[in-house]
């Protein structure tokens, strides 16, 4: 196990290097960082040259890359062109908010998809199965942001008009009440549901077919024939095997979900990394954009790594040499 862990870790390093290289190439493509200064009439060409030297821009490109890489590792991610804030502070200020949204979305997805997928598999070809399968097909094809708009129309606009308790459409908490756990939970309902909808639809289909595969196997028949209650057969025996492959999916879907946070957070004014990315993109504020892109990529690589390890740890059949 330790050997496997070390080997996987060694594989992660070149991956991160390539990602950083891609990031650096994009930054190079954004043009001269001093372009704004060359327009400034009060600066002579000597001043520009001095600035260029100060920021290391007169060095060869490979050296620039190494310097940039060193800075990224040291946590110096530059400052925003727009607010002059340190990018590393901007990102980590928003990170917990995105984490809340993503974790709650995962919980929503896993709990509802597990339930619906299993029921749908056990009652194959029943009306319920047809409805669930049909809805999951539609769910996969629905753009999440459009679903979000429709949910706002129904649960915020129409409910408010009808005098019912309505869901808030933006922010993490009501500013008149202040931040508290119930407030955040109340505000997270719509964004989390929207964010997880497509994923839930896919998981339902996946869990349904995985479950169908399992319940026709011999060990399930054995479990039934020795008189175990159906509940135990399904949950303790069959579902355990389904869960294994779901674990890998959860890890692989993180980039998908992180992409989703850009759209959903900007739509629901959720103060997380996705919204920061969007507002930086609108202002073409390159340092936070690149920092967030690389941060999201690193999160993805790490989650894949963790999932691999978990998978090896949980499934006794898998032995990596």
């Amino acid at each position, binding site marked *: 196990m330790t050997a496997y862990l070390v080997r996987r870790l060694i594989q992660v390093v070149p991956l991160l290097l390539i990602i950083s290289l891609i990031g650096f190439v994009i930054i190079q493509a954004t043009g001269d960082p001093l372009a704004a200064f060359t327009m400034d009439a009060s600066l002579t060409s000597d001043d520009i040259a001095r600035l260029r030297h100060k920021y290391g821009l007169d060095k060869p490109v490979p050296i620039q890359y190494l310097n940039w890489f060193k800075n990224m590792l040291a946590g110096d991610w530059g400052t925003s062109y727009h607010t002059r804030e340190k990018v590393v502070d901007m990102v980590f200020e928003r990170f917990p908010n995105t984490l809340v949204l993503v974790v709650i979305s995962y919980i929503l997805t896993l709990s509802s998809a597990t339930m619906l997928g299993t029921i749908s598999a056990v009652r194959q070809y029943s009306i319920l199965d047809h409805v669930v399968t049909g809805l999951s097909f539609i769910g996969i094809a629905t*753009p999440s942001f459009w679903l979000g708009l429709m949910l706002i129309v129904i649960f915020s606009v129409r409910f408010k008009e009808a005098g019912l308790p309505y869901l808030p459409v933006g922010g993490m908490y009501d500013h008149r009440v202040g931040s508290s756990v119930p407030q955040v939970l109340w505000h997270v309902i719509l964004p989390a549901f929207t964010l997880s909808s497509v994923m839930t639809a896919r998981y339902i289909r996946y869990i349904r077919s995985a479950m169908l595969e399992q319940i026709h196997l011999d060990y399930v028949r054995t479990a039934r024939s020795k008189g175990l209650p159906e509940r135990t057969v399904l949950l303790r025996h069959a579902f355990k095997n389904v869960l294994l492959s779901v674990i890998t999916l959860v890890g692989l879907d993180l980039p998908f979900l992180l992409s989703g946070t850009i759209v959903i957070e900007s739509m629901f004014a959720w103060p997380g990394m996705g919204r920061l990315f969007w507002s930086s993109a609108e202002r073409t504020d390159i340092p936070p954009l690149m920092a967030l892109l690389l941060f999201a990529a690193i999160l993805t690589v790490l989650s894949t790594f963790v999932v691999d390890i978990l998978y090896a740890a949980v499934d006794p059949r898998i032995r990596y040499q």
Partner: protein
Amino acid sequence: MTKRQKAQISKQFVASGKDSGEPQVVARASQDLLVTRTPESMLQLIWRRFRRHRLAVASALVLFVMAGICFIGPIFLSEDAANWLEFTAMRQPPSREHPFGTDDIGRDMLLRSIFGGRISLRIGVLAAMIGVTIGTAVGGIAGYNPGLLDNILMRFTEALLSIPRLFILIVLARVVGQSITVITVVIGTLSWMSVSRIVRAEILSLKGQDFVLAARAIGTPPRAILVHHLLPNTVAPVVVAATLGVGRAIIQEASLSFLGLGVQPPTATWGSMLFRAQSYLVDAPWIAIFPGLLILITVLCVNFIGDGLRDALDPYALK
């Protein structure tokens, strides 16, 4: 044997039985059968299998009609009409005159949906084609050149897959530009990774087979083996991936435009129409409903067609 052929034969049997009832007639009937039955071509086989998938056929039909309206409609309608502002008819609910209603500055939503659909569909198809081309090339080269080249290409593919798609899409669109062409190319060049993995895996498993050995034995150059023998065998999964890629590209373009970072106004795409709709959810929800529904229907149809093709193209299926 198709149903019609079967019916014909049984009719002949019945008819001939009535005439004389002699066994030689039966022999003639089966001889007829041998003569009339030409072997099925590959495309006929695929079409026959695809037709069995009723949802896929219906989806193809729906998509065909929608694409027809979006591409033929603009010949008779002018884009100026779609961008025509009518301040006396702002935010009107769907009516006989404006079946999809009007938007916040009085433009007819149906016309905009048609013109927007043309662009959304075109971006979807072209981007998927770009993605499949690059993916097949990269996957083919990697699969046929084991060792360093394969390793480098696959690590690069993995690295690109690790960057969440929308992040790199937005940065590139921001850096390179936001014209329709650029958006198409950017979405296309970022969607080849899964195709290249599929092609590479297929080629690795095909490479050891006898027909490749035979080709090599008669002195076929490696490039010809790759192009003429290996790649044609990967067509089935690639076609399925390409079909599903169209839906994904349409949603990606819509996401970009919805964020206001895609195709710029006044050009309509389904995504950019939704971008405007956000501000008028209270008074004019129909501005949001129709473009989204169109995206949903298109992607749903594309996915069903993909499913149908997957079954129809499966070389291991028996019938």
